[in-house]
């Protein structure tokens, strides 16, 4: 496949792996967090750890939009379909996230009285707008989740609805912000005081950075003295970024580098940023699964567009719900624990019956490890014929 195979080339990978082996200092250990689920997925799917020396370790970060969605938010979406009788439109990944009372959007879909409400999977907010136009007598709500990448399309949907005067369309806004989450991790006691998580640098997001640019990460290099390398989602991007991070650590010269120059600039996508600024404002607090309440880490719909805000329209009140007490998703999302440190992993919690959110999306690190990497947990897993 043109323009993709080039970034998955095994020979080039071996070349970078050789450079990494030559560059690492043998007495040093390197701990890098890949923030994004997209990177977590690529690392597991292409078997990148097999190409890294033993003293380079990747820590999975909280950048999986489905994983950080707290139970209470999914409950709100389910209530909209079951109690308020709306057609709830959701991205596919979100459907299987476990919510309260043994429900998920997928299970609720089987329960819902189709004459009143419904839950439908969509690929784009445009699909939700289309459903609203086709069903003028029904209320249609778009369950908007994700980081800065999925926010501009939601903004366009809101502005389209306003322009068309689409009275039956609204958005349940759960958009969250990447820099706030990184700050939260760097300020956490595990990283700052207790030293439980060694963090020597970040692989910065690919798609998020196409929107916000590389500039917002400069703060982390300057204030926290952590190198950041923004990388694309292809496996060679990840390998190259790891090499760049190792070089920065070795020289002690911390800055933001951009490996993903084919898509990311320092300023980002100004037009998308303007659309987001027009439609959204910061929430003072927002609950993240795993990270808890994080100040100024999420967006809400501006007063001007309140008519399209599902929380206002249906008078929803948020009810926080604790995770299952044995579920380690929180610690895993903060990089404190590895999926296999969780008692539930691979036992009662599998991709087919997830207990925690990290086991749901293919970007979740538990799902990625279970699907692509669990042979490494078994000594016989490295089988030969």
């Amino acid at each position, binding site marked *: 496949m043109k323009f993709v195979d080039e970034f998955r*080339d095994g020979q080039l990978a071996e070349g970078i792996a050789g450079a990494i082996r030559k560059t690492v200092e043998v007495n040093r250990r390197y701990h890098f967090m890949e923030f994004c689920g997209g990177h977590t997925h690529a690392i597991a799917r292409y*078997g990148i750890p097999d190409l890294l020396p033993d003293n380079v370790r990747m820590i999975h970060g909280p950048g999986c939009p489905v994983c950080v969605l707290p139970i209470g938010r999914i409950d709100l979406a389910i209530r909209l379909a079951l109690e308020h009788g709306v057609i709830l439109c959701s991205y596919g990944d979100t459907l299987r996230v476990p919510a309260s009372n043994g429900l998920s959007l997928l299970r609720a879909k089987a329960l819902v009285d189709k004459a009143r409400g419904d839950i439908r999977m969509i690929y784009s907010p445009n699909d939700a707008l289309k459903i609203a136009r086709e069903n003028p007598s029904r209320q249609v709500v778009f369950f908007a989740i994700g980081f800065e990448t999925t926010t501009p399309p939601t903004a366009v949907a809101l502005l389209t609805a306003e322009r068309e005067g689409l009275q039956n369309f609204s958005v349940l806004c759960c958009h969250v912000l990447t820099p706030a989450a990184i700050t939260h991790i760097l300020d956490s006691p595990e990283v700052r005081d207790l030293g439980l998580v060694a963090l020597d640098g970040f692989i910065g997001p690919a798609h998020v950075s196409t929107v916000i640019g590389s500039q917002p990460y400069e703060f982390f290099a300057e204030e926290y003295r952590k190198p950041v390398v923004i990388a694309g989602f292809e496996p060679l991007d990840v390998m190259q970024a790891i090499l760049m991070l190792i070089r920065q650590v070795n020289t002690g010269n911390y800055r933001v580098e951009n490996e993903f120059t084919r898509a990311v600039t320092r300023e980002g996508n100004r037009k998308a940023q303007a659309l987001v600024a027009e439609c959204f404002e910061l929430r003072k607090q927002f609950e993240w699964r795993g990270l808890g309440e994080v100040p100024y880490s999420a967006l809400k719909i501006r007063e001007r567009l309140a008519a399209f805000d599902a929380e206002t329209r249906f008078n929803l009140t948020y009810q926080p719900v604790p995770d299952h007490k044995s579920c380690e998703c929180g610690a895993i999302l903060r990089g404190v624990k590895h999926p296999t440190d969780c008692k539930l992993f691979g036992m009662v919690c599998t991709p087919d019956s997830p207990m925690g959110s990290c086991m749901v999306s*293919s970007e979740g690190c538990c799902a990625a490890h279970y699907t692509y990497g669990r*042979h490494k947990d078994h000594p016989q897993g490295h089988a030969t*014929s």
Partner: protein
Amino acid sequence: MKSDYSRPLDLKHGRVDLSHGGGGRAMQQLIRELFARHLGNELLAQSNDGTVLPSQQGRLVMSTDSHVVAPLFFPGGDIGALSVHGTVNDVAVMGATPLWLSAGFILEEGFPLADLDRIVRSMAEAARHAGVQIVTGDTKVVEQGKGDGVFITTTGIGVLPDGIDLSGANARPGDAVLISGSIGDHGMAIMSQRENLAFDAPIVSDSAPLNSLTAALLASQIELRLMRDPTRGGLAATLNEIATQAGVGITLFESAIPIKPAVEAACELLGLDPLNIANEGKLIVVCAADSAPSALEVLRAHPLGREAAIIGTITADPNRFVQMQTRFGGRRMVDWLSGEQLPRIC
């Protein structure tokens, strides 16, 4: 005496109504003018509650498959041909010669007779091509909104000569794994229709009867362990089934797996793994390693196996893991698909 006049079925503008499943004259007419007209053969013509089949030498293999694909017509096929191929292939991969099929139709009130005619014609053509007869059938009609056009269930019977045993449990460490051609064509043909993905050359379903291909393999001197057709859940699901059944591991070589560029691109766009995508005309062969080159030769000599490849090897692994050596140089698990990625694919 004049024979009773009945207005012929309007195959141009007519629609299925509830009387077509009512057991009365309307149903008889539908059977006569549509089903029997296209599918007719001397066994079906017995017209009794059951069909008496001639006795055969050898054991019998029976398999059944229901078809609910949406859309009903797609590039490379339709629900009619698919319902024949699906069952013929399930019988054929057992090493049997498929002979007869039954066909059960669930029709939705209001379904255009022209579409039904096109589907049944396509079934007849597929059956002729595969060398099987449809020998008994059933028609039911459900109210509008209670079905989705047409659902078809076919059951097939084939004859298995003595001495052939192709159970999934036969795979042994060291055996070779082959595939008869590119993966994911059927699933992505359906998906690209549903998602309106347009490509310069549309993705075409691989829906095809595999019985002549399986017959060619059986006629050769290859030390065959088993054959499978990787339908729903794709290559990944079928290989995991084999690993579980035989208590072995499997290692795949990603760079050896044939895949069409358009299929790979569509999977990339939709975030799907081609290993999980359904096929309807592909054969997985597991054979002794020594036989692999001749198996490859037999496959490639057949029109349905031109792109055949040796894609992996059976390993000793008590965990029964299917793993893949990635093109990138790493190693990863190839797991079952979790949940339902592509509903109503066949």
